[in-house]
């Protein structure tokens, strides 16, 4: 049976710039996600990022749930800059709105400039049908029946 979860887009402060002098806020598809390792868990904000291949979170969050980050399998990955980044992958559980599932997630020190974890194609988009309604500020996740 599929599970339906509804979230609102979140609004964050944003500094104005030369290109967008009136900008004061940014509306983003950011949701609370609980990372679970055995009996240890931490809830943090993560952005639903269709441009990310995988799910990657800050290494500090992984350490907080008792993971020895660099004992995981490493992956060199690319953002939109030329810089190459490293993540280490571990088997954890992810909880979203009370719905829990297994996820092979990456943890990286190189996300330090990012405010959120990344929910990407494998480990998130492959498990949910996702409807974005920016105008109404709503996000709807429907778990796939075969999970």
């Amino acid at each position, binding site marked *: 049976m599929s599970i339906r979860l509804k979230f*609102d*887009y*979140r*609004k*964050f*402060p*944003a*500094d104005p*710039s030369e290109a*967008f002098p009136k900008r*004061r*806020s*940014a509306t*983003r598809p950011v949701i*609370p996600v609980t990372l679970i390792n055995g009996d240890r868990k*931490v*809830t*943090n*904000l993560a*952005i639903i*990022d269709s*441009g*990310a291949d995988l799910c990657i979170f*800050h290494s*500090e*969050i992984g*350490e*907080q749930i008792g993971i020895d980050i660099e004992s995981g399998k490493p992956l060199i990955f690319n*953002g*939109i800059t030329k810089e190459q980044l490293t993540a280490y992958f571990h088997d954890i559980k992810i909880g979203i709105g009370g719905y829990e599932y297994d996820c092979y997630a990456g943890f990286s020190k190189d996300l*330090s*400039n*990012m*405010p*959120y974890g*990344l929910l990407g194609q494998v480990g998130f988009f492959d498990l949910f049908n996702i409807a974005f309604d920016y105008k109404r*500020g709503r996000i709807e996740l429907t778990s796939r029946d075969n999970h």
Partner: protein
Amino acid sequence: MIENTDLRKVLKGYSNKWIALSADSSKVVGVADNPKEALEQAHSNKETTPILTRTPARYGTFIL
């Protein structure tokens, strides 16, 4: 629980920090340079299910 999803006022003024928000995201219950200390402050403030996030050095634009 009604969740606050407008974090503009709640997060404004914090830069390059780990922030623990209350479970309804209505207020900051911990601020530190690492999540451990932010969570400890949250628990000291009797918040049992805080939500962690980072604040960037500058509230710029993200293109992911």
